[in-house]
């Protein structure tokens, strides 16, 4: 899922100072699972804004809505009527959701209510960890299912740096060294020789540091012949 963590409500308040009508929009997908942007969070953020509005003596009018998925245009329909009179929309969806809302309602200010962190999962209740940096060229088969791009602090592809001590990463004593984990797992699988293979420089053009990426699947696209003629 996409991991996100809530922004402070005060930082949102700083942006909506003179406004009256707000929409707080949640999403039922990833941000619900990582408890930063689902229905409950929407309700809390809306209530906090309402309390702050009353406190300043000029209450907001706040609408709450949590859609099935913000990153899919068709699910944004419930926002249409609410956005008509909104001065701003606070989206608790990930950065993708925020942008889809902003694209659909170009005349309304859209404010991210969360900081989007990355691709990860739940390691225990209340703890979510990043696992994938979405580099666009997955090498997990060679690294025993442990992603060095994400989990090695330096994103090294050819083994550990000199800073790993007792299995800990030099960049933080609470983090395990990804390459030592890979080593142990390769050893268990009897594939240590894979560590001797030199991996060439990675093609970062597939990653987020290149141009905006697009995935196109012709067979999924609408068939022109059945589209109504203009």
């Amino acid at each position, binding site marked *: 899922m996409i991991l996100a963590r809530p922004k402070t409500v005060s930082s949102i308040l700083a942006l909506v100072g003179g406004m009256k009508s707000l929409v707080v929009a949640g999403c039922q997908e990833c941000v619900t699972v990582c408890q930063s942007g689902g229905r409950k969070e929407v309700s809390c953020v809306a209530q906090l804004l309402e309390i702050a509005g009353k406190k300043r003596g000029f209450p907001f009018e706040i609408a709450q809505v949590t859609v099935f998925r913000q990153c899919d245009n068709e699910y944004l329909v419930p926002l249409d009527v609410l956005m008509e009179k909104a001065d701003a929309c606070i989206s608790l969806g990930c950065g993708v959701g925020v942008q889809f809302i902003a694209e659909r309602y170009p005349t309304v200010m859209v404010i991210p209510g969360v900081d989007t962190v990355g691709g990860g999962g739940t390691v225990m209740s209340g703890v979510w960890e990043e696992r994938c940096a979405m580099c666009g060229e997955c090498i997990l088969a060679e690294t025993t299912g442990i992603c060095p791009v994400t989990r090695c602090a330096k994103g090294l592809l050819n083994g550990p740096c000199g*800073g*790993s001590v007792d299995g800990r990463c030099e960049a933080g004593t609470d983090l395990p060294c990804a390459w030592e984990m890979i080593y142990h797992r390769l050893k268990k699988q009897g594939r*240590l020789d894979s560590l001797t293979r*030199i991996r060439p420089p990675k093609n970062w053009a597939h990653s987020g540091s290149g141009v905006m990426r697009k995935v196109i699947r012709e067979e999924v696209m609408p068939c022109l012949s059945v589209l109504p003629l203009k």
Partner: protein
Amino acid sequence: MSIGPAAKVIEARTGSRLEKVLRAGHFAVTAEIGPPKGADGRRIQQLAALVKDYSDAQNLTDNQTAVVRLCSLAAAVHVLNNGGEPVLQMTTRDRNRIALQSDLLGAASLGVRNVLCLSGDHQRFGNHPEAKGVFDIDSVQLTATVRQMREERLFICGEEIKAPPRVFVGAVENPFAGPVELRVLRLGKKVMAGAEFIQTQVVYDVEGFTRWMEAVCAAGWHKKTFILAGVTPPKSAGALRYMSRIPGMKVPEELIRRMEKASDKLREGQRIALEIINHVRAIAGVSGVHIMAINWEEAVPEIVSMAGLYPRP
């Protein structure tokens, strides 16, 4: 890019003094010079003049510990201008493959004949912890890149280089981090990528170093590369304690106690360095020492003389 041919021990072909010394079978001495945190090059010039006759080459660190300093390339030129033999350290932390290859061409054009490839200390503990780490390529890939540029005359992208950089290529290894088996595998990988010399992390734990060297020799890597053991004369017990906390460093407790008890700390520090040099010199497969007298470069001439390694060939 094609990488991976095992480094062949070939005739000196880079014009590097360090390469000549090593290939001639002498016990090599390199010294580290830390560039200042300012735009004043005089101290590097003085230090270069001070240590050049007592070492075969001088390493210029590249924003060591991720702290901004005068750049290693400019420092290398200061050393060249003062009759020294610079080893240009290059980390992959701050520059992508475009900048690294470009810097290498520039350095070679100015007369730099040695380069040391590192990934670099993580920026989180430097003086700009909010910086974005580049890590476009890693140290193994950088090593292979330099060899490819020199021998195959090709950039990473495969385009031809008209005037290739003739530099002697080194890499680093930390014998004390993690399982010995993994450390030897990784050393081997660097050698396969083309590292002609290896400078190690500071050795205080002589026993640990000996064990690692045995494993290295068992794998035969000492025949395919020159291994220089890192030596740092401790200035005080506090300095030792500080170093013992650096990730990947091992400092025996008794050494710290010995420094605490010593009345003349500087003398004792030099003596410790001397003992370690003598010790590693006797270990099979060790081709030299790399003296990193951090903020105490003045100690180098005396240590080298005391070790009987002066004059240099």
